[in-house]
């Protein structure tokens, strides 16, 4: 009798526990579900904000002039055609300009990687007087807006001279404006587009690498520069990739230096893009802004295409590099 009572009591307790557990589990699952729905909504909403303009540009670039004035057309053109692309590519002189700007961007990027990684390595591994002060100067170059020094830079390259040597031989200083040389020179001395940031990235990365690698190389008889070149730089591949991608994309997109040094139009695709609307309305007599805009869209797609392809291929390394390269001080 007593045993029975205890048994039934025990069973009811177990039952309650099972119920409770089930209840808790449902609660938990429900919460998780709600959270993931919430996350999905927010993430896809913001992804739409980012992608929206790109989608609309791509779809608009296929519109024909009649589609523009057809109010029932939304995103999908009724008469898609490639005419916009043809004219835009012709007015941009696409392949030639693209090739020129790619050469320029690649050249500057290679110089940037080489010089800034050297400086980063120097700051990460060596001790020399005023090191902290000098590194503070690097940080200042990151923070200082470039427009503060744009006038002196402009004047400097307007009459370019090294210690008076050039005016000694030529009689007058060189005018380096209207060419891409100033950008190459600036990058060569680690003062190019966001060089400070790259130095910072490299320094953080090199600091994270174990010292034993270098010591082993030293014992095996490698010189300092050999070690840096053949061992450290290879080990710093994630940082090199990050800086490389950043530098390429930003240089490709850059307008500030291009305008400041009035670089030639036929060597810079994005700069040329900024004038395509006026070129087309002037040369091809497309006076309607709504229609000449279609050519701008086509031009934007053409200009974006190399970056997007590049990004799709290197996207994985890029993110890995960003996460590992210790932008995170």
């Amino acid at each position, binding site marked *: 009798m007593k045993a029975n009572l205890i048994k039934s009591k025990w069973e009811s307790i177990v039952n309650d526990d099972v119920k409770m557990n089930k209840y808790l589990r449902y609660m938990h699952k429900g919460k998780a579900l709600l959270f993931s729905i919430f996350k999905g909504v927010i993430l896809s909403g913001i992804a739409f904000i980012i992608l929206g303009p790109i989608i609309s540009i791509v779809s608009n670039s296929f519109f024909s002039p009649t589609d523009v004035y057809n109010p029932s057309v939304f995103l999908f053109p009724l008469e898609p055609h490639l005419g916009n692309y043809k004219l835009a590519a012709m007015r941009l002189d696409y392949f030639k300009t693209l090739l020129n700007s790619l050469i320029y961007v690649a050249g500057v990027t290679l110089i940037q990687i080489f010089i800034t990684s050297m400086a980063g390595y120097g700051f990460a591994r060596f001790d020399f007087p005023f090191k902290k002060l000098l590194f503070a100067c690097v940080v200042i170059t990151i923070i200082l807006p470039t427009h503060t020094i744009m006038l002196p830079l402009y004047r400097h390259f307007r009459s370019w001279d090294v210690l008076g040597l050039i005016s000694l031989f030529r009689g007058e200083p060189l005018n380096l404006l209207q060419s891409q040389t100033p950008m190459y020179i600036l990058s060569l001395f*680690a003062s190019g587009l966001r060089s400070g940031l790259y130095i910072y990235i490299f320094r953080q990365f090199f600091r994270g690498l174990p010292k034993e690698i270098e010591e082993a190389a030293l014992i095996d008889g490698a010189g300092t520069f050999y070690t840096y070149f053949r061992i450290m730089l290879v080990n710093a591949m994630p940082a090199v990739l990050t800086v490389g991608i950043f530098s390429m994309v930003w240089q490709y997109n850059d307008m500030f230096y291009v305008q400041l040094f009035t670089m030639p139009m036929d060597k810079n695709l994005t700069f040329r893009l900024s004038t395509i609307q006026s070129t087309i309305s002037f040369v091809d007599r497309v006076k309607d802004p709504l229609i000449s805009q279609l050519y701008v*869209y086509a031009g934007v797609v053409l200009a974006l295409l190399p970056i997007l392809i590049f990004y799709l291929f290197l996207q994985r390394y890029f993110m890995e590099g960003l996460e590992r390269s210790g932008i995170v*001080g």
Partner: protein
Amino acid sequence: MKNKGLTLSQKRSITGLLFILPWLIGFLVFYLRSLIQTVSFSLSRIEFAETGGYTSTFIGLENFRYALFEHADFNQILVNSLVDILIDVPFIIFFSLFIAILLNSRFKGRGLVRAIYFLPILLGSGAVAQTLELATQNIQGGAAAMVQEMTPASGVNMDIIIDVFLDLGLPIRLIDYVEGLVSRIYEIVRASSIQIVIFLAALQSISPALYEVSKIEGATTYETFWKITFPIVSPLILTNVVYTIVDSFVNSEVVRIAYETAFSSYNYGLSSAMSVLSTVMVCIVLTVICVMISKKTFYHN
């Protein structure tokens, strides 16, 4: 003796200097000299000679006085862009931290979503961005959007929502703030992409053991966020604030007006004064904010 008594550490310091030599030359020639020149330009009147040279006469603070008190809209633009930045910064920081936390958790298609979120880094500056901005103004596509505007039958009417909030008795300032943020959402998303990356990298550096322990001890998600995630991420909030302020100042109207003054009206002195003024302004804002934040930051090593 071949080495003339150079110790090993001296040799190493010379090698180190050799490594940073290109940067050092660049810094001295291009940055330091230019900065000094900018300041001296801003204190003088520049007149051009036919040959491309120029003469400068020292006029003291005249350029600054002109820029601040007589120029038609410089001081307004300066104040406006400053206020804009101060409004945007807190939101950008919270937004990017929030998104970084969402992106940090595991879910299907995370790689794709991340790739999309990092796109603005690539497209966020320069010529393409300018053209994209133009297209964003009619996000639903050129003429179609105009037709929609003329017949507001579909779509969300902002005014009604704003009226509802006004009726609820919320303060007008708050509504204005939120409304401003909503209408600039694209710019804010675009401006916060690097910050998202930085926060994401920080979040991934947190060891999962910390979360496990706190879960076993019975901490709620809310508590874990404030006691673990936030303190570890907090040094980066400072980094991100600095980055946001600098970046938005570079893209602000002040730069444009300084540029135009220099290259359209050829008033180098005035333009330099504007640059110096805005730079000093940024520096003051940065120092104040850094001091404010760094007091509350937690450094774990």
